[in-house]
């Protein structure tokens, strides 16, 4: 039988990767919308996106648990659509993570889009580039660093997530039992040796991952030089 901690690692990576992909797919248009929006509702949407930063994870988790359970509408709709219960499923912890890590992806992207502004997009339009063309060939390459930051923050934050998953996951091995919860379990059951190993590998893994991202994301020589010329 597979080592339960390795299984938890696999579940964690799978959850974090999927969450990151979904967050980029949802977060990019949302961030774009927020960056371009001038309505007074903007503040309200921004506040909602930032809510997971202030809300205690277990509180968020509690309300998600209620929402996901088959007794209430969202959970019921899911069950009708997929034939499976939403709460305590892998899908549930991915959805929970998406909501919980949303600000970590949306905020850097929104800031990057705001900083980019209209000038280069207008230049693109004058050269015959339509909206999608402008996004993929101007916005994306210029804000690449912010996308990498957003993705790595979203991924790292999801890996470290505990409270929400504790509530909505149900700690089911291979399904919703992730590293942070496995670690907590070891501590709770006085298995400190296993807890230390898990903590150290989690720490080392995160260090390697984050360093790799920052290394990839390091400004090239050319850009450093450019910065000097600008000043």
């Amino acid at each position, binding site marked *: 039988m597979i080592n339960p901690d390795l299984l938890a690692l696999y579940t964690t990576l799978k959850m974090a990767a999927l969450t990151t992909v979904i967050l980029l797919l949802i977060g990019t248009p949302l961030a774009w919308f927020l960056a371009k929006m001038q309505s007074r509702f903007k503040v309200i949407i921004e506040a909602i996106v930032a809510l997971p930063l202030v809300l205690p994870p277990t509180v968020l988790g509690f309300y998600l648990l209620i929402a*996901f359970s088959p*007794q209430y509408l969202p959970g019921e709709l899911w069950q009708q659509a997929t034939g499976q*219960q939403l*709460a*305590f499923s*892998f899908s549930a912890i991915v959805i929970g993570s998406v909501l919980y890590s949303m600000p970590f992806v949306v905020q850097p992207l929104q800031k990057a889009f705001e900083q980019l502004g209209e000038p280069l997009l207008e230049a693109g339009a004058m050269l015959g580039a339509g909206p999608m063309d402008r996004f993929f060939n101007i916005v994306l390459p210029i804000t690449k660093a912010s996308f990498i930051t957003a993705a790595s923050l979203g991924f790292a934050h999801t890996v470290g997530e505990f409270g929400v998953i504790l*509530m909505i996951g149900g700690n089911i091995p291979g*399904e919703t039992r992730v590293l942070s919860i496995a670690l907590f379990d070891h501590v709770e059951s006085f298995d400190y040796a296993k807890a230390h190993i898990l903590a150290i590998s989690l720490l080392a893994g995160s260090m390697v991952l984050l360093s790799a991202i920052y290394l990839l994301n390091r400004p090239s020589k050319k850009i450093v030089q450019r910065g000097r010329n600008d000043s």
Partner: protein
Amino acid sequence: MSNNSWFKIFVLILTLSWSGSALSSSEKPLRIAVASNFTPVLKKLLIEFHQQTNIATQIISGATGVLFLQIKHGAPFDIFIAADSTRPLQLEQQNLVLTNSRKTYARGQLALLSMNSAAQLNDLKKVPQRFAIANPNTAPYGKAAKQTLAHLNLWSRYQSKLIQGINVNQTFAQIRSQAVNSGLVANSQLVLNNLSGAIIPLSYHQPIAQQLVIIKSSKNINEAKRLSDYLLSAAVQKKIIRFGYAKFTDGVLNITKAGS
């Protein structure tokens, strides 16, 4: 890296993720939701259970309160081994458990733990600067701790000195890490960690009945029943007591009522 290759990576991750989740949902072992302070004991007991029955099990360990909430909202567990009797009773009242499946499998034993010296019962009379107990309102061992202090007419003097843990595990960790010098914890915790403390007499507080229930929606009811029977068998009960739980002197029926 070009946009195209990023896109390919996305697709790859998506594919892997869904295929992975499809694989892992095929097997259905007996899912045991167990209060985290009983988890280490259960793990040891399950070795023999598995040898005898060949039933595959999956342990889902957590705080009794959280597990209770999850079961209430449809968590796919088969059997719930709680650290108290209140939550199993509530589940029973909500018609979520198998009829007559609620059983007391262990009776909690409170102990005084001090990291400075070998604790004596008399030490309780010297009120320390800080004293750790579990939350009396939510944790069964906390409730018993409060009753113990009240029984000794010490509650009012202790009240301003208390550090309250979410559950008895947190209280134990606070003392063990010497953040707090002493407190009331579960005796089973001391046994598991080879520590010694002073046993609190059972007459100082209402019994801490730890109960289990079989979840009504379970698809493994027979296996769950076998586990329940196994845990309640005389041989296993002896083992549980050896892990630091109290003996059944007053009879099961009586204790069951005490929970309500």
